[in-house]
């Protein structure tokens, strides 16, 4: 549900940066969304149609890069793919691994004109 708030903020940040760069319009907005970010890309796309109306991003296309979750085991010193926050190391089965990637929720870049 909070994807509308997130996308409103994405458009606000993009407009601010586009204005600062002197652009007349934004043709593309690229977001990076981690698998464990708590935001659903489908819901973000749905919100996108509404929140960009009447802004410099009115005709922009949205590209969402989905970042898979990657855990890190400090004792084995290896990265491993994971699907959840608990990230057990596949080698030593220790549950206390840290999450290296997968929580991203950011604007990567945009195309200006």
């Amino acid at each position: 549900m909070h994807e509308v708030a997130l996308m409103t903020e994405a458009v606000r940040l993009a407009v601010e940066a586009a204005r600062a760069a002197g652009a007349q319009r934004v043709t593309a907005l690229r977001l990076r969304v981690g698998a464990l970010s708590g935001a659903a890309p489908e819901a973000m796309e749905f919100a996108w149609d509404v929140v960009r109306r009447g802004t410099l991003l009115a005709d922009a296309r949205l590209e969402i890069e989905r970042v898979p979750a990657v855990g890190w085991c400090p004792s084995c010193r290896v990265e491993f793919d994971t699907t959840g926050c608990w990230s057990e190391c596949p080698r030593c089965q220790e549950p206390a691994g840290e999450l290296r990637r997968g929580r991203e929720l950011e604007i990567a870049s945009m195309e200006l004109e």
Partner: protein
Amino acid sequence: MCKECGCESGAGGAVAGVGEPRHPHGADPAHPPGPRQRADRADATLATLELNRPLLEKNDRLAERNRGFFKAKKLLVLNLVSAPGSGKTALIRETALRLRGRLRVGVIVGDLATDNDAARLRTAEIPVVQVTTGTVCHLDAEMVAQAASQLNLDALDVLFIENVGNLVCPADFDLGEDLRVVLLATPEGEDKPLKYPPLFHSAHVVLVTKSDLAAAVEFDRGQALANLKRISHHAEIFELSARTGDGMAAWLTFLEQARARS
């Protein structure tokens, strides 16, 4: 900034002008092409702007401001998150009453609509501000800052922020709290942490509430604790019942110690 192209050149000397840019673009390596500069193509040039900025940057900044402000006030601030009906209000009410004379408790409570929760706390003479979020499914740092300004924080030791009942969205929003407390009521079932891992993973403290109902709802305590140990492995876990008072003593001691550290 250059008014023609938005580049950083020409600062100070830029005149809002017409016609060609007043300085050369592109040819000079010290002055790379600006985003609006026309290239050799006839159509407008596309420029890629790398941003790499978090979407929640504004909220995170406000949350840090809240945290600093609360710290200066020597307040212990807890963000209580759970599904609707897990017993957040009852727990806060009981905690505040039992701490009376030891610690002064205030509350910010968020709901989509009504001030029923605030009314419930007010009858116990607990200072409370109700935030009604309308359709918004979580509290954010700005809402908390505004609500906090309506409380006399100098007369408080502990501030509970009762978040909107929701196990998904509040996970992403830092409010400036010291501790995030996630509630799991026994009727919700022992597998709730597995179903909503991001929020349970973000918990500093997990409270298993309504322990008095555990037998009636066939709550598998062992399995629940195993699931919590897996998802919330760094969190402190308390099992309690606000209604009977079981397990409340350990929770209150924890709060007093946390307050002494804050």
